[in-house]
């Protein structure tokens, strides 16, 4: 393949990976925040996230024929998804995890897996009652267009991208902007407000925080609310990016996002974002390996295609946990006896 063809191709793949990475990054934040306060992998987060996607789908479906501005529709979808997913996450914590504080480690984990399965079937049931299983997003008009349709209305960035042969869609740009705004808001809340300070205190040492007058149960609920709301946002973005979702499709992105959280260092917010972006790019690169397949001499492994991109994150996870278990930006904590 000639370089003039290959270069834009690679750039396209990387840009697509980054867009995907932003979705993973926001899902990963939900995992990482909950892990920070409870040291629990919230398996149900992937379903909280897909609930957000389903809510977004419903909002777009209901508003399909209204003459409202597309951006306003998106805003309504995002807010609705945030509220539903956030409250769902709080509910899960109250009903399933809170009674198990102080139980052996495996008990809440198994519970989380159970909650995840229950939610999957509940979602399928609710959508199935109306005979809908594979939900196909119908975005407001204009969202799926090229970022830069005509040269006259091009932004400088769009012009530059066109000259090197990269095409970005408007929805990708919207997705990245929404993701960046969410990250900014989260960063402000965690680092600049009393609530954020209290959450950080609880995640450092729940008992001592309680002695200092912080209601640790309330803070844990708040963490679940924030994590769930982020899950809702990422759900809507995921639905916009992929177009088709169903009740079970939260699993794969959930696992990848968890891997991203571990890769960045679990419990670290910038780490989750970094890990998400890296994994998005890695996954997209693996997805196109069939170009390099002959180089690697892997012809015997059958066709290398997108199905292998599913296992990329796991390979990354194994390598990370073997060589740097704390993740890229994580702090090491030694278990004292």
């Amino acid at each position, binding site marked *: 393949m000639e370089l003039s063809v290959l270069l834009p191709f690679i750039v396209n793949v990387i840009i697509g990976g980054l867009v995907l990475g932003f979705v993973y990054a926001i899902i990963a934040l939900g995992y990482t925040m909950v892990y920070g306060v409870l040291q629990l992998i919230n398996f149900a987060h992937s379903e909280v996230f897909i609930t957000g996607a389903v809510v977004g789908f419903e909002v777009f479906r209901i508003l399909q024929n209204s003459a409202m501005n597309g951006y306003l529709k998106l805003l309504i979808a995002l807010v609705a998804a945030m509220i539903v997913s956030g409250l769902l996450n709080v509910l899960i914590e109250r009903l399933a995890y809170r009674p*198990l504080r102080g139980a052996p480690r495996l*008990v809440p984990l198994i519970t989380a897996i159970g909650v995840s399965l229950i939610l999957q*079937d509940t979602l399928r049931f609710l959508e199935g009652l109306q005979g809908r299983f594979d939900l196909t997003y119908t975005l407001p008009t204009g969202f799926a267009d090229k970022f830069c349709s005509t040269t006259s209305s091009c932004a400088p960035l769009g012009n530059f991208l066109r000259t090197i042969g990269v095409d970005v869609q408007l929805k990708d740009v919207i997705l990245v902007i929404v993701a960046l705004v969410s990250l900014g808001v989260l960063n402000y809340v965690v680092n600049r407000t009393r609530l954020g300070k209290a959450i950080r205190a609880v995640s450092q040492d*729940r008992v001592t925080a309680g002695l200092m007058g912080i209601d640790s149960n309330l803070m844990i609920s708040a963490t679940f609310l924030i994590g769930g709301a982020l899950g809702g946002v990422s759900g809507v973005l995921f639905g916009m990016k992929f177009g088709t979702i169903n009740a079970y499709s939260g699993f794969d992105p959930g*696992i990848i996002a968890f*891997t991203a959280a571990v890769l960045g260092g679990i419990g670290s917010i910038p780490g989750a974002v970094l890990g998400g972006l890296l994994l998005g790019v890695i996954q997209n690169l693996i997805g196109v390996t069939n170009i390099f397949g002959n180089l690697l001499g892997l012809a015997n492994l059958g066709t290398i295609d997108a199905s292998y991109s599913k296992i990329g994150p*796991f390979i990354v996870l194994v390598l990370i946990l073997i060589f740097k278990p704390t993740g890229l930006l994580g702090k090491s904590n030694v278990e004292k006896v």
Partner: protein
Amino acid sequence: MTVASPVKPAVRRPLVKPDRTVWLVLFFVVTSILLLVSHETDVMKNLGALGDVLRNKVVEALVVSLFLANVLFAYLWKAANWAKLLVGIGSLLFVLPLAGQADTSLLDLSIQIMIFAALALGLNIVVGLAGLLDLGYVAFFAVGAYTWSIFGSPRFSEVLKYYGANAGSTGSGTLVIGLVLTAVAAGSMLYIRGMHGRVAPTTLSNLSFLLAGFGLLSGIILVGRSILVLASGSAEALANGINPGFFWLFLALSVMTAALVGVLIGLPVLKLKGDYLAIITLGLGEVIRVLANNLGLYTAGSQGITPIASASVPWFNSLAGALGFRPEQYYLLFLYVLVLIVIAVILLVNVRLDNSRIGRAWIAIRDDEIAAQAMGVPLMQTKLIAFATGASFAGVMGMIFAAKQTFISPESFNLLQSITVLSMVVLGGMGSFSGVILGAAVVTLLNLRILPGLGEASANVSWIPQEVNPANFNRFIFGSILVAMMLLRPEGLLPNARRTRELHHEDDQEDESADGNASGLKAGGDVYSAGLATIKEDDKTGGSR
């Protein structure tokens, strides 16, 4: 701290169980008659309305469940030994095959229950005894199944044909080179290992060890490839897979392969803590499934492998024929007996292991890794043994599963299967052998009989949409099982006594200072020392609450 009243620890006195010999035998007779009658079609025709009721899928599922409850009651109730033996042996060896003669699906169901019971016993070792949450357990099942399927089906001749057509420069010379390379590499690995015993490992020696390991791998690949190429001439003769007589050899091989894969998967990941381990084993399970999907040459990809041969045992077939079985039932009956024997062996191995030094070590690392290590339990070795043991049970059952289904595809080994086995273990009771067998029976009956039965019953009801009928609700049900058990009865239905005491630690403990309270370690965070901050909010230092 005000102490309202001295709390007396609840002493659990062993209850004197009433003798239920008569009830047991009566129950056995009644359920056996029900089971036999409800599967004899010509008798059912004469029963009229009662026959219609018995033919109903849900009722039929209930009858089967009640019949299987016999074995459970024989285990639980206090009764004379002759009655227990009569019920146990009678129901499994006489009544079930007899009913299976009339309705082959019963044999199928029993085999399935026992396969899952063995899987649950294997996972119970990993999760219940050693405390390592493995969510990719079905991978070992897949390894065992594919080990036999590739050789016991036309797939193998396809592989040989491919290598015959693409031999390249491979020949007997390659075989020699491969053998030499393997021997040299294995020798160097052993030598470096021995050297590490005498002097501390350096970077150079570690690298050499890795290099030798790579050499060993290459040698094995070369040997395998050259053998395949040299044997490619016999591809035509093996058009229907290898001689079924090799079944017995492969029974041993599948155990070894699965155990080997268990060790290989375990080596990199067993250093990790509980929940990381869970995620990573889940990932590796998916990796194995994706490989099975993509290695089209060996596993036929997503179409799956079929037909898979089973062992051919002429004397058994003639015996079954003499007993009135039809020829198409021979292989199922044979597998039924085989699976009974295998599960008996597995149960024996489990019980013996549990009381052995290894079993003690597992429980020690489950309860408190750091303390166990300090007491001289070799962590890595103990965990690897747990992984390999659990994997080997799954491997042998995978092979029997492949022989029973005569068709396997990667979709038979998805994550939901792993979760299903986990829910069996959790439902029955982690660490309790009778418990996980009960869990396996209950969940399998739910999956194969009760849910489809309910599904058929609700299919005719107009206001229930087809898409939401109970037959598709396995996930919901397993999820509910997991959550409900964890919240209400974490020790399971038939708990293991030690485990119960551990999980209900707070209820009947007056003073924890007598036995080292390690629960704080498992709750996460740091425990500095006795007397300083304990980890749980409601824990106070000192004894009483």
